[in-house]
């Protein structure tokens, strides 16, 4: 009986070391919930502004919405308010996400800046930076309608790529974001709802599931 337990322990050690050294598993579910909440607050703050410009463009057809160089829209989008909200939301979400993951890594006694987390960061950043540059060009050209779907699709691709280096479940979140982004391509003008759902509600759902699965018992 005793030897059986030592062998089981040995197997568990092996499994743990294999995971710890190849995947970054300290990613906390609470990070997802916090980031999602930030996104929802950001969307709520941005809603009146988007709605105002939406009223102005509601009667235009989608093609016009995509390419129309609308002065009012340009001023509203780049003209600080929305842009500032987006940047603040992103920063807040990253800070909270980092905080909870940092706390978790302390708890599980895994280094937060290890080979596995470096690999994860690199693989998330590659699609995100490419997407960022693409979206920046869209903003410059004035095709605002494609910004929200673009955010969702590139973020989904980044998650899909990241899932090889962290918890496997991230993959499903990535796929959901991509699908949402693609649907959004045909419902241009409703970006804020898709944005709030993808970055807000999906993150919170994912966070709750992850927390329930991995952290509840600890």
């Amino acid at each position: 009986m005793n030897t059986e337990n030592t062998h089981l322990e040995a197997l568990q050690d092996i499994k743990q070391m294999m995971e710890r050294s190849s995947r970054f598993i300290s990613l906390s579910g609470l990070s997802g919930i916090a980031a999602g909440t930030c996104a929802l607050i950001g969307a709520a703050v941005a809603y009146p502004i988007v709605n105002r410009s939406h009223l102005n463009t509601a009667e235009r057809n989608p093609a016009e919405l995509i390419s129309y160089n609308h002065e009012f829209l340009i001023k509203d989008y780049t003209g600080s308010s929305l842009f500032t909200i987006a940047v603040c939301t992103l920063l807040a979400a990253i800070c909270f996400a980092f905080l909870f993951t940092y706390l978790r890594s302390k708890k599980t006694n895994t280094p937060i800046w290890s080979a596995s987390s470096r690999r994860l960061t690199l693989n998330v950043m590659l699609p995100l930076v490419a997407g960022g540059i693409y979206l920046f060009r869209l903003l410059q050209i004035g095709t605002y309608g494609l910004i929200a779907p673009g955010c969702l699709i590139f973020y989904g691709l980044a998650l899909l790529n990241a899932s090889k280096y962290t918890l496997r479940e991230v993959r499903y979140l990535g796929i959901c974001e991509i699908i949402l982004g693609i649907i959004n391509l045909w419902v241009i003008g409703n970006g804020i709802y898709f944005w709030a759902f993808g970055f807000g509600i999906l993150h919170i759902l994912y966070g709750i599931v992850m927390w329930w699965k991995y952290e509840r018992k600890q």
Partner: protein
Amino acid sequence: MKNPIEHLNKSFDNRIRLGIMSTLMVNDEVSFNELKELLNITDGNLASHLKGLEESGFIRVQKGFIGRKTNTTYAASKAGEKAFKAHLAALEEMIRSSK
């Protein structure tokens, strides 16, 4: 009667050596410092276990430099992979037979 522990490898008897081999099985190469962080042990302790595994021919050692600092990386050798898999199979067998 067949001895059930004949396939258990003495080299992997120790938790730290088991940890080193597990890490090397799923990573192409791992540096000394990464191993140290992962296993949470002292330099001397890690070095002596690595030496033991190297002498058994289970790991390959590659000495290099990052700037002026030495950077030694380790990888599992073919023999090491084979021995580790046999060890895992033996562990599995033992647990199954004692049920």
